[in-house]
Structures are given as C-alpha cells and as structure tokens.
C-alpha cells in the first residue's frame, strides 16, 4: 500500500523534468510518455571510438599478417635448411653404408688378410681353458712365407740405420728423466715412425684405405655409368 504512492511520485518527478526540457509550451498531460534523448552528443563520441577501434583492428590485422608471414617464411627457411642438411647426411650415409658393406664383405676381408700374409688353417684346434688341454691336432698352415719386419735378424737391425735409432735399454746408470727428454726430442724431430723412417712433423701419416666401391648401375646399355674415382 505504501509502495505504490512512492513509485508514482518518482515517475512524476522524472516526467516533469524531462517535459520541462524538451517541450516548452506543450501541454503536460499530452506528452507524458515521450522522452527525448540527446542524439548529437552520442553520435559524436561513438564515431571517434569507432575510428580508433577500426584503426586498431586494421593495425592488429596488419601485424598479425606480418607475424604469420614471417613465421611461415622462417619455418620455410628452417625447413629448407633442414631438408638440405638431411639430404647431405643421407648422401653421406648412403656412401658410407656402401663403403662399410663392401669393406666388410668376406671377399674383401680375405683379400686383406692374404695381403697381410695370412692363410686359412686346414686343421682347427682349440685350447680348453679349464685344464689347458689342446683339442684337435694343430698343424702349421700351408702357405708361402712373405717377408715381414719381424723376420729381420739382429745384425740387420743393427746395421739398418733406420733401426739403429732405438732408445737405449734401461741398465746401469739409467736416467728416466734424460730418457724421457730424449724420447720427446725424437718425437719432435719426427724420428719415431714406421721402421724409424723420418716422418715429416705435422704431416698426417694416415693413408686413405683403398675403397672398393660397388659400381654404378645403369640399365641403359649405352650409358653404362662407372664409379667416380
């Protein structure tokens, strides 16, 4: 009961103020429900914000496009870099696989072993570790003897100037410090090498192993490709 009059009074107050502003000289009772907003002010304010928002979206889009493009380009660069790296590595792998396989083939191993003067054994024999017993009848392998450094006699070794430059045997009056100094000196002079031959200091003594390459196959009879040396 008390709420209703309160509401009425509020409505009256609003109505009167609005009506006063918008409609001067118009009868109060006829325009009771009309309210006028001020459109001009709102329009001005919203246009500014609108432009700012638009510009913001535009610049954001621009930045986004730039970022995406850069990322994609970067990705493409990385991709192509990794691709070429992968191609390089798989190329190396293919070459090495072939080399290893060819060198490890029994035919090649046998050749290398024979070059070292080894021959196949015709009588396999075993030593039993538990009691040291020899199982089987060991027999010297048959094959032609080839000359090796181990065959050199003492006299040859002494007269061979290359072999004469051997370190002194430790004995009476052996001075380890002096021996070390001498050894170092020899090493620096490059006197230590295969059979005492003078090896040039700083020069790599590693020699490339001969590579047996499987040949390039081409089914085109006219274009039989051969391996590249």
């Amino acid at each position: 009961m008390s709420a209703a009059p309160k509401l009425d009074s509020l409505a009256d107050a609003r109505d009167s103020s609005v009506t006063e502003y918008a409609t001067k000289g118009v009868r109060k009772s006829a325009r009771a429900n009309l309210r006028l907003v001020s459109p001009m002010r709102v329009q001005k304010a919203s246009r500014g914000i609108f432009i700012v928002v638009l510009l913001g979206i535009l610049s954001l889009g621009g930045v986004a496009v730039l970022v995406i493009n850069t990322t994609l380009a970067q990705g493409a660069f990385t991709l192509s870099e990794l691709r070429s790296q992968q191609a390089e590595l798989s190329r190396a792998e293919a070459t090495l696989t072939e080399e290893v396989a060819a060198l490890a083939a029994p035919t090649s191993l046998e050749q290398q072993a024979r070059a070292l003067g080894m021959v196949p054994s015709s009588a396999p024999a075993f030593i039993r570790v538990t009691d040291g017993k020899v199982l089987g009848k060991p027999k010297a392998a048959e094959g032609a003897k080839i000359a090796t450094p181990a065959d050199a006699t003492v006299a040859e070794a002494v007269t061979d100037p290359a072999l004469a430059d051997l370190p002194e045997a430790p004995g009476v009056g052996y001075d380890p410090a002096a021996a070390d100094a001498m050894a170092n000196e020899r090493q620096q002079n490059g006197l230590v090498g295969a059979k005492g031959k003078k090896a040039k200091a700083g020069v790599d003594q590693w020699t490339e192993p001969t590579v047996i390459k499987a040949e390039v196959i081409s089914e085109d009879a006219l274009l039989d490709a051969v391996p590249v040396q």
Partner: protein
Amino acid sequence: MSSRKLPPPRLRDSRTSHASGFASKPIRLGSSTKRGLALMIASTMVLMVFGVRLIDLQAVRGSELASSALDQRLRTTEIPAQRGSILDASGAPLAITVDAKNVTADQTMIDQPAVVAEALAPILGADADILADRLTGERRFIYLAKEVTPDTWEQISELRLPGIFSENSSRRIYPSGELAANVLGFVGEEGSGLGGYEYAYEEQLGGTPGELTFEKGPGGRAIPTGASMRVNAEQGVDIQLTLDRDIQHVAQVAIAEAVQSSGASDGTVVVMDPQSGRILALATAPTFDPNFPTQGVQRNLSNRPLTDAFEPGSTSKVMTLAAVINEGAATPYTPIKVPGVLRRGDKDFHDSSAHGTLNLTLSGVMAKSNNIGTILAAERIGGKKLSKYLKKFGIGQETGLNFPGETKGFVPAHEDWSPTSFPTIAFGQGLSVNAVQATSVFSTIANDGLRVEPSLVSKIIHADGSVEEPEAPQTTRVVTRETAKQVRSMLETVVGEGGTATNAKIPGYRVGGKTGTAQVVNSVTGGYSKDVIASFIGMAPVDNPRLVVGVFISKPKAGRYGGELAAPVFKKVTSYALGALEIPPTGAKAPKLALTFGG
C-alpha cells in the same frame, strides 16, 4: 548508407510534386511512379536471379563444386617404401637398398648440348657423343643415367648446368658381390625381385608405398595452412637367412676352384646344421653378380642346389642300408657274400671295378660302396619297405624351403617298379633328388634318425622392430637312434683306411661320410651318358655331428670319383666351418669295424 541515399528521391519527389503542381502534367507524375516500380521489379528480378544462382552455387551444388575446386588444388605424391634388407645369420647385410639419384635432362633448356655432354661425360663415365645425342632435341624429359650415387649427383649439381635435373631413386646393392647370389636372387629395373628370395619374398620385402596429398599453390608448392593428408609408407621387412656369410664364402671359393680345376660344368655345396635343419651355406659355381644380373649367364642365375635334380648314386646307399638295419634285417657286422655279377630281371649288375666273390660285412659294403652287396642287403627287406623309407627321408617330397623353381625330385611309385627298378633304386639310380634333399638324408642320420625339415629363413624383422619367427620346422622320426648310430660308424669307415674317401679326413676330428659317382642321364637319348656327378656327403664330428656338408660336382672332365674330387672340397669347407663355429673335436677314439670276414 541506405539511409543517406533515401532522402534525395524524397526531395526530388517533393520537387516534382511541386513542379507538377505548377505545370499540371498528370502523365509525368504517373510515369515516374511506374518507372520506379519498373526499376524496383527489374532490380528485384536481377536480385532474384542472383539469389537463385547463389542458392544453386552454395546450397544445391555447393559441396560438389567445393570439392572439385579442392581437387584442382590437391596434389598427391607417392611416398616410396624402402625395400627391406636380406641379412645373414649374424645380421650382416647381403642385400641392402641405398639412396640413389636418376639424372634427367630437359632438352629444350640446353643450348649447347656438346658442351654440357663434355662436362657430364667424365662424371657419369659415359661417352660424350652419346650424351650429346641424348641432350639434343625437343623432349622436356629424358633420363641420362639411372641410379647413380648421391655423390655423383652432387658433383653434377655443382656444375650448375642448365636443364640437368635429378630424381630421387634407390638402388639395390649386394655388397658381397657373388656371395649367396643364387639364394638372394636379383631385382629388375623397377627394383622388384626377379629371382631367388628377392622374388619369393617380393611382397614382404617391397612394403607398401604411402601417399601424401596436399593443397598446392600457384607455384606448385604446398600451401602451409592448406589441407593435407598423409598415409605413411609401410616399409619392407628385413629377412634374416640362416646362411653364415663366412662359411658361404669359403664354400663358394672352394667349389669354384674345384669346378675349374676338374673342368666340371658346375658344382654345389650344401652345409647344414643337423640339429636345427638350418642351412648354413648353399653355394654353387659358376654363379653371377647380382649387382649386374643382366651380365650373368642365364644358366648361372638359378639356385642349382634346389632347382637341379640328379640321380644321387652311391650316397643313396645310406638310406638303403639304414632301412635294412632299422628293420632288423642286418647289423654292420652281418656277413654278405658278394658275387662278381648279379642278374636281376633282364639285367646283369656289376660293381665299378670287376671282382670275384667278396666276403664283405655290411660295413664293408658301405666302405667299398659295393653295388651288388647293397642290392643283396636291400632284398632282405624288399622294395615296398624301401620305398616307404625313401619317402620318410624326404625323397620326392618338397624341401619346405619354398624356393622359386625348386624341384622335388622323383621316385617312381612302388606299384610302377619294374623287376630292375628295385635293385637300381637300392644303389641310387632310377630316382632323382636335389642337393638339399640328398644332404638332408645325412642330416637325418646325423641327428639320431630324426629328420628336421631344412630351413633357410631364420626370421622376418618388421620395420617397427618386431620379429616374426617362421613356423618351427617339421620333424619326422625316420630310423631309430641306435640305427643312426650304427650307420654313422659305418660312414666313418668310408673315410678311414680302406674306404673310398680318405681325402675327407680332417686331422684331429672323427669324420664320416659317403662318396657317390652317379651316372648322368642323357636328356636326349634317355639312357646314361659318360658324364657323372661326383659327390661326397659327410658329417663331423661323426660321434656327435654338428655339421653336415654335401659336395656335388657335375660332369667333371679331369677325374671322376667323389672321393678324389668332392672329398677335398668337403675337407676345406668343413675344417673352416668347424673352426668358425668353434666346434672342438670330441676326442673319442673311432671304433674299428671289420670290413671283411672270413679269410
């Protein structure tokens, strides 16, 4: 926008209404309304056409059009599947696939073919004139060389020659060359297997190629954000064989030497582990290099140990005598009076050297490889039982190796035997076997009478690392343990003093085996020719056999007997294999079996 455009007509309307008011022309007023109406109808109709078209494009045919547009942008490329390797028992590669490049050319881009050819010739190792020829013309695509190494292509690409391109490819290589070529087979131009296990396991080795579908941009490159679908390639499996590449190598070298020195047409070596049935070496000479299959001679491309059938001859006596002992009809000591000639059916049977009546024990019959003695012993059990034993030993049956072009040999059914068939088959003629079957007979004796089906594939390794073991080989009890033991001691006398194969002796080891010198059937006349197959099949150590080795030399010119030609090869291969597999001698002493009886 529309709110701004609307006011002017209203203004104009008001003006015209004013004007009409002054000029008072009623027709104009009507026509302008009509015109507006007409305009509205026209634009509505145009809009309707647009609308209909829009609905048609978007709703009715929308998905269809979208997909066909996508089809225009989509490109599908094949992801090749890598062919699996073939490995030996230790996992060492026998056949592998490596990356390679095909060198191609666009002839229209090449202005000076001679210069380009000159630059390419030394790298490709091809003739410059031929290359220049291939570089001249209007073709947009032509192969210059196929399957060159990536290194070779690298050298070419460094030259920056115009119109020279490459294409990814792969190359099958057999790093050990001729090693086991007969078993491995070879691949053809397209990289698919055409012979041997390369052919038999083509599907598993080859794998299934995958597919990559992507949206391509104007340049042909993939659109990074576009749709893409990838079906991964299913890589080929690796096949691990039971072959030991070192034993295989020794066997191949030994048989090649023997074939050459004896002037034989070909030769074969089979090395088996009797306990597992695994074939450790399967060598034949002459052979071919699978890296260059087209350069090989056609008859050398086959795997003779499995594809060639021959009459086994005396090595077959092992089956006959084992059957006789197993049936309890005789023992190694049973005396047999052997006449010089034996008439059966309408035929006189002789021995390789003429003799009067001999007093041989059953061991003596084996040691001297006596035909008549074998016939007399076989008659103690009869043909029906003998034919049953032959079948159990695997004669005339598939070996189970599933090798392409394999023969299963031939034994006539017992019902079809003529009066001379039984004595002939008893000493190894009138039936045919392949080398693996013949060796498998001795493997059965070596494995205490239990036949284990031979095998060549030990496992199949899938790309994901999972291992598939083939089915366990079938085993058949052929003769008793005791029979096998007795036959083995008889086989030892063959290699011993007075036997036919003293050349097979390996110092320190007890070795047993049997020689064979079988006549070769003349394919034209159907009768026997002068040619023979000299063979020796043996085992070591004979008191606990770990290795069975069969050697077969076909049509030798110098020499004739298994003991002189095949036994030395057996010795070479077996002594190496014993060392390589670390099989020590048993150290036991050989028992002495009497070869003769009486005086």
